[in-house]
């Protein structure tokens, strides 16, 4: 890649730059800052669209009393049962049980706190699920 061809397509890096190695007119390598490249931006956007879609599905199922609010925070934090179980140091089957609305409502505070701490929210917030996935973590 030539230095003058180093892409400058902003999208995912906010105010930051990434370093690209490119050749100058003499064929020598130089370091060139870049604000991003469109194909990388598109691939990134695709990943967030998937998360957003999963989140919409899970919100619908929570509203239908099919899943507990815990499912929302799990998906919002891009986790599955296996990963979440590791973070809260509980067995997978217990986490799976807590995805049941009735079981979740009966949870004692100490367990709720583990979840809350993992997700960086308060224990009260754990029971709050937005109406739809206005995804505040994604790009833009």
């Amino acid at each position: 890649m030539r230095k003058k061809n180093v892409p400058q397509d902003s999208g995912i890096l906010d105010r930051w730059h990434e370093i690209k190695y490119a050749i100058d007119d003499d064929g020598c390598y130089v370091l060139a800052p870049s604000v991003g490249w469109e194909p990388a931006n598109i691939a990134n956007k695709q990943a967030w669209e998937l998360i957003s879609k999963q989140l919409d599905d899970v919100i619908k199922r929570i509203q239908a009393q099919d899943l507990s609010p815990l499912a929302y925070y799990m998906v919002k934090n891009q986790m599955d049962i296996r990963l979440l179980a590791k973070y809260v140091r509980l067995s997978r089957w217990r986490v799976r049980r807590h995805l049941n609305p009735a079981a979740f409502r009966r949870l004692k505070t100490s367990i709720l706190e583990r979840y809350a701490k993992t997700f960086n929210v308060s224990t009260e917030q754990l029971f709050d699920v937005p109406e739809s996935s206005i995804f505040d973590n994604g790009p833009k």
Partner: protein
Amino acid sequence: MVPNSLKINFVHRQSAHCESGVAANLLSHHGINISESLAFGIGAALFFGYFPFIKINGLPLTTFRGATGQILKRATKGLGVQAKRHRFRDPEKAMNALDRIIGQGIPVGMQTGVYWLPYFPPALRFHFNAHNIVVYGKEGTEYLVSDPVFDEPVVCSRTDLIKARFAQGALAPKGKMYYLTRVPDHVDIAMAIVRGIRDVCKTMLKIPFPLIGVRGIRFLARQIANWPEKLGESRASLNIGHVIRMQEEIGTGGAGFRFIYAAFLQEAAEILGEKRLLNISKRMTEIGDRWREFALFGVRNCKGRALEGNTYPAMADILLDCANQEDKLFRDLADLIS
């Protein structure tokens, strides 16, 4: 006890890849002034692996880098530098150990999960656990962090740093930290370069496992050609998008790594006084451009509007071409330095 405020005089140099950047910056701090690309080459950082049985966000792992810590391990070994590495079970102990070492004025490198690093742009916050940073001081409860893929040093609170150091899942860092302990007065860079080249040729050509090196690239190429049939259009598109993210998103990079390696070969040509390496560097640049072409093709599928029908076989062809060219290049390189 560590004073509440402490700042080691550490020079932050931005780099293209986190681990080679950390290695170069730590070595430079200790008096071995080397560029990122030189650390990348000496650390034999070029790699390819496709591991469909390891999932990141539910998608198969394609990696362009070796096991974490390998670059620094090989670079220090090659240069005769001694380094210490620790892993921890207990976050408290991990942070105390960190405080103790920076308290001695030694910058500490560590492995972290990017999901928990607050300064990361939101769009890049995925559960990726092999990100390397340097901590070079603290101010109250904030740690001073030199994250080599960012323009400037940043800060990270103790709470967030604990979470990042004890991120869970694939490639969990387990509190891993490392620092240099002894640096020789004289280092033989030329020797280290030759060793680094030899190591890379070996991983790319000779590992008897079909998912690694040039064979791994060919394996992935064959898989990609079948993805639309095997997985359906939408899953295939997600898989391709994932490969491209692993290839092009900040700090990793398949094409980018080829360019760093080409830069290393130019430096090596000068240090070793071996003109023929310049030609190989040029070929490596061309291969890097091919990888970029692959990404360009790939995203057309991510957008869900493949232009001329099915582009998967075309992408597979580009990858096969990359594999063939790299195969030849590493053979020539191995011959040249042997």
